[in-house]
């Protein structure tokens, strides 16, 4: 379980993270979404005790990360898959971590095989790894100590579609066994399939958060009509503002029944009426983050 309370980080006048609060419960996958430079990585680094917060606090299972003596046995962390010594072999990277955590290095080959790195890859130096291979190594590294909590920053970066699919299954299974997963992404599509909860951040502030289903429902209804002008007039009378897509369909922030009844009463012919779902969430995500200008990633 991860608890983040009013976490704030300022660099000079800039607020990289501004009063962020959320919790990640056991058995769930939380998607931490936001454009590049929104403060995702800074928040994750504060959770992992690498960056001291300006104010607020973060705990893992009730304890501040820096107070964990041997955190690898409880929290698996992958913040940057490229941050490994280029001159070490993949096997050596895991062996060092295993020794540090007090684990037998005999588990290393099996753990590498589980993330799809075979014996040949294990003996190669990280310098020769593709980004996708580094992500796989990073996931093996994070899961080496059999943790109950996973914190992953953009783990899908560099993975091919098959790799992304594989990783989703891995994380889903981990959460279904009672684990807690917090993973960040700047792409909604990457996390919406696997996440139970979403936390959306922009410009250092939480824009929205909640269960994925609720957020999807709140995204509105897709409506298509034979007479756009009549629909527009109807929506105006209802006090709603629709967003027209390129294909002529209109995203309306109301549920299907309300719109259907009003359209029937007004005699407006509808061709399509359905919950906007992920398309709507994407639209919402873009709308919410549109004002949040991507700034230079604060390091």
């Amino acid at each position, binding site marked *: 379980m991860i608890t983040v309370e009013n976490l704030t980080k300022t660099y000079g006048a800039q607020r990289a993270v501004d009063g962020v609060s959320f919790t990640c419960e056991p058995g769930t996958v939380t998607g931490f979404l936001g454009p590049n430079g929104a403060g995702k990585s800074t928040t994750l680094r504060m959770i992992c005790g690498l*960056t001291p917060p300006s104010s607020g606090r973060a705990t893992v299972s009730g304890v501040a990360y820096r107070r964990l003596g041997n955190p690898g046995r409880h929290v698996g962390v992958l913040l940057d898959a490229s941050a490994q010594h280029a001159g070490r072999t993949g096997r050596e990277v895991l062996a060092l971590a295993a020794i540090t955590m007090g684990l037998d290095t005999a588990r290393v080959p099996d753990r590498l095989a589980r993330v799809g790195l075979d014996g040949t890859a294990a003996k190669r130096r990280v310098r020769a790894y593709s980004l996708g291979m580094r992500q796989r190594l990073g996931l093996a590294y994070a899961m080496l100590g*059999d943790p*109950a909590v996973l914190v992953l920053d953009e783990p899908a970066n560099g993975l091919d579609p098959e790799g992304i699919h594989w990783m989703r299954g891995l994380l889903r299974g981990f959460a279904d066994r009672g684990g807690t997963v917090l993973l960040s992404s700047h792409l909604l599509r990457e996390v919406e399939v696997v996440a139970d909860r979403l936390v959306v951040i922009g410009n250092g502030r939480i824009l929205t958060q909640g269960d994925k289903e609720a957020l999807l429902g709140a995204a509105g209804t897709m409506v298509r009509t034979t007479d756009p002008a009549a629909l527009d007039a109807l929506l105006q009378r209802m006090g709603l503002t629709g967003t027209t897509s390129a294909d002529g369909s209109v995203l309306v922030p109301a549920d299907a029944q309300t719109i259907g009844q009003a359209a029937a009463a007004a005699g407006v012919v509808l061709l399509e009426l359905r919950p906007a779902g992920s398309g709507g969430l994407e639209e919402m995500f873009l709308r919410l983050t549109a004002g949040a200008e991507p700034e230079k990633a604060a390091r």
Partner: protein
Amino acid sequence: MTAPVSTTPTTLPASAAAPVPLTRLTMVELRKLADTRAGMWLLIVIGFATVATSAILLGWAEDEEMTFTAFYTFGLAPSAVLLPVLGILSVTSEWSQRTALATFTLVPARARVLLAKVGAGALIAIAATAATAILAAGANALAPAFGGDGAWSLDPSLIWQTLLFQVIFVLMGNAFGALLLNTPLAIVVFFALPTVWSILGGSIRALADASAWLDLNVTSQATMEADMTSGEWARMAVSTVVWVVLPLLLGGWRVLRREVS
């Protein structure tokens, strides 16, 4: 994956709460000195250069100069010069290769990591000194065949003094690495700064007194002669504080405070 998730996920397993023992961390840091190409090659070069010192003495030294003491003290030169580079890399590579992110995520107590690096540095210095002694013994056994003296006497005080000499310079490497956190900069400053100070101390009369106490290059030379005097010990202690202890404390403070990304 068969991750054994604890039954009550909010409780922390004991294995995660207890700190990683310093001995284990030191073993990890020792292993990290040799498990990269840069580290491995540095050790190999030191080994070859040490063998070369014996070969030079066997081939070109005067017969009476081929003694165990001579093979040993001359044999220490390559490791004295190059092992500190390993000490520098031990600290700076965490930042230049960005492994600090993973290292401090696994061990949030950064002071313990730094302590383990210092411990590993001291151990590798001791190991290199022991290896040099064994090599010197081998060379000295061959000496008579080259017409050399082959005397085995070694003043016991030299053992401790040379061990200390080796450890001091590796820790100075650790210290400069921690202070500068940048590999090329730390290596250049490590070699250039004491040399510049030696030149200044040697050429400017007003600095001569200060340099006798503060020039580690000068004060540490006493370790190569048997039975250091108390005055020599005092001078070396003072210069060690200036060149090793102070940079190590300042560098440690910097490593503890620096944001990792």
